[in-house]
């Protein structure tokens, strides 16, 4: 368990964050300038703070200089040493588990190259491998994918997932991309203007209608966990979730594998009756669990479906016209194509 409590006064900005990160991936989510990177720089000892309490499994790290903390840090810009080959870069911090790291991150073909000859995605994989081979007790990832274009992101994400499944240390994953968070993290800490505004499991926080203002209306949306049933010949994948069967676009996962599906709240349509003659493939019977009227024209609607939760965002006008109330049994309609392939995995 990593315990962190830090405070620092910047010019016109006060950072005051307390958070716990157990083994597994904890996402640190928030808009630009919310203090995400400052938090993990403080954990690594790279940022001097007014208050910096950092402990790992009861051991105080606060007084140690950065090179004694045993913290692996993957920077947004990879920061590979330009005068060393990939292999030398990776061995710089140690040679822990070299063969396994090289295999998991698919780096075998790159070892003799120099950083200048690598693509952005390859650089990030090398940076990740370099951090892992130093046998860190905590891994800090600072938006490792944000500098990459979509194809490169899609290339690196599976490696991060493999990493998540194979290590038992706390991993803090700083991101402002909800798709990444939903796929990788089991816990989420949401920062806003230097403070923690939400904290909990990804399932809980993303299904919480009160979280919508902090996550942003475009990023809000629950995460369903499910099992891939099979792939249809017309390019769709059927996933059995707690809320019912779901068709999503693309050939996702292998049959029988567990996946997460992020369902953006703004793409969920609500209906009083089960619609027919409609192009949307996914119609789920749901019950309204809560209504949260926002400051703007929207209402966040928390839904339960079987043992799963969903979140929908509709206008106040629709909500009033339909007379939606807690406890109502209605239908949630979800276009298969509203679920981007990157949101499934």
């Amino acid at each position, binding site marked *: 368990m990593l315990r962190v409590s830090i405070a620092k006064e910047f010019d016109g900005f006060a950072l005051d964050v307390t958070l716990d990160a157990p083994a597994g991936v904890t996402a640190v989510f928030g808009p630009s300038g919310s203090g995400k990177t400052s938090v993990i720089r403080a954990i690594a000892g*790279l940022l001097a703070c007014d208050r910096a309490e950092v402990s790992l499994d009861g051991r105080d790290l606060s007084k140690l200089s950065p*090179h004694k903390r045993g913290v692996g840090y993957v920077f947004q810009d990879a920061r590979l040493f*330009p*005068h060393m080959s990939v292999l030398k870069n990776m061995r710089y911090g140690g040679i822990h588990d070299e063969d396994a790291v090289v295999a998991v991150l698919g780096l075998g073909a790159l070892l003799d190259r120099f950083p200048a000859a690598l693509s952005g995605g390859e650089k990030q994989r090398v940076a990740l491998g370099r951090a892992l081979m130093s046998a860190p007790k905590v891994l800090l990832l600072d938006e490792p994918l944000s500098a990459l274009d979509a194809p490169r992101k899609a290339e690196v994400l599976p490696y991060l997932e493999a990493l998540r499944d194979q290590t038992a240390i706390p991993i803090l994953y700083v991101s402002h991309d909800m798709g990444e968070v939903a796929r990788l993290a089991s816990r989420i800490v949401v920062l806003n203007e230097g403070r923690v505004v939400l904290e909990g499991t990804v399932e809980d926080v993303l299904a919480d209608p009160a979280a919508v203002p902090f996550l942003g209306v475009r990023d809000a949306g629950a995460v369903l966990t499910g099992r891939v049933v099979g792939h249809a010949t017309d390019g769709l994948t059927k996933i059995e979730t707690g809320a019912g069967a779901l068709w999503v676009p693309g050939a996702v996962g292998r049959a029988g594998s567990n996946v997460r599906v992020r369902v953006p709240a703004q793409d969920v349509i609500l209906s009083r009756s089960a619609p027919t003659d409609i192009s949307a493939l996914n119609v789920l019977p749901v019950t309204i669990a809560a209504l949260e009227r926002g400051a703007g024209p929207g209402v966040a609607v928390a839904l339960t479906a079987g043992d799963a939760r969903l979140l929908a965002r509709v206008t106040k006008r629709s909500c009033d016209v339909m007379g939606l109330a807690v406890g109502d049994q209605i239908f949630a309609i979800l276009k298969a194509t509203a679920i981007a392939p990157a949101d499934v995995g």
Partner: protein
Amino acid sequence: MTDWLGPAEWIALWLSLKVAFWATLFSLPFGFAAAYALARGSFFGRQALNVLVHLPLVMPPVVTGYLLLLGFGRTGPLGEVFEQLFGIIFAFRWTGAALAAAVMGFPLMVRAIRLSLEAIDHGLEEAAGTLGASRLRVLRTITLPLAWPGILAGAVLGFAKGMGEFGATVTFVSNIPGQTQTLALSIDTLLEVPGGEPLALRLAIVSIAIAAVALIVSELLAQRVTRRRAV
């Protein structure tokens, strides 16, 4: 070929090379330390150090020489220390010429090294730290290798400056053939002697050639630094 220059001129050339070589060798560690402090440090007196390092560049060389004479002469406080501790005498010896050359070349050397240090992404040093490297190991494995072209460029500039130093040298250690009469001093002497002008011209050509080569070399090294940065 050997009679292109007279024996005294060959001695002056050789002496200049020797003076510049030792001046560069001994000032390089100090030059790097000063450049590192100026590029990376944030400490009280940083600006004072900056001024001190650059003073020889802007002060009249004769003043620098005079200060050296006061400090490092036989009876100067530092001169006595060096004589007693290391048995090194600067006054009116080639060692004094080397000291003058080192002091006069120092600002150029520090400037070149400092620029190369500032071109290094500090983030790389941070990253090395998170990988468990102590500050000394970071310096040895990251900072020094990446700054290497700049350090060489600084050394070349310092060497070239040392080869041609005149004012501080002549003030500090006078103009003694075979002991302190370097290239520049030799040219000056030849110009005073009737009929010495052709030889002076030849020596001038030699010193221009050395200076030009040094500039080209340091320019090439500087380009390597910028290329690295672009990667």
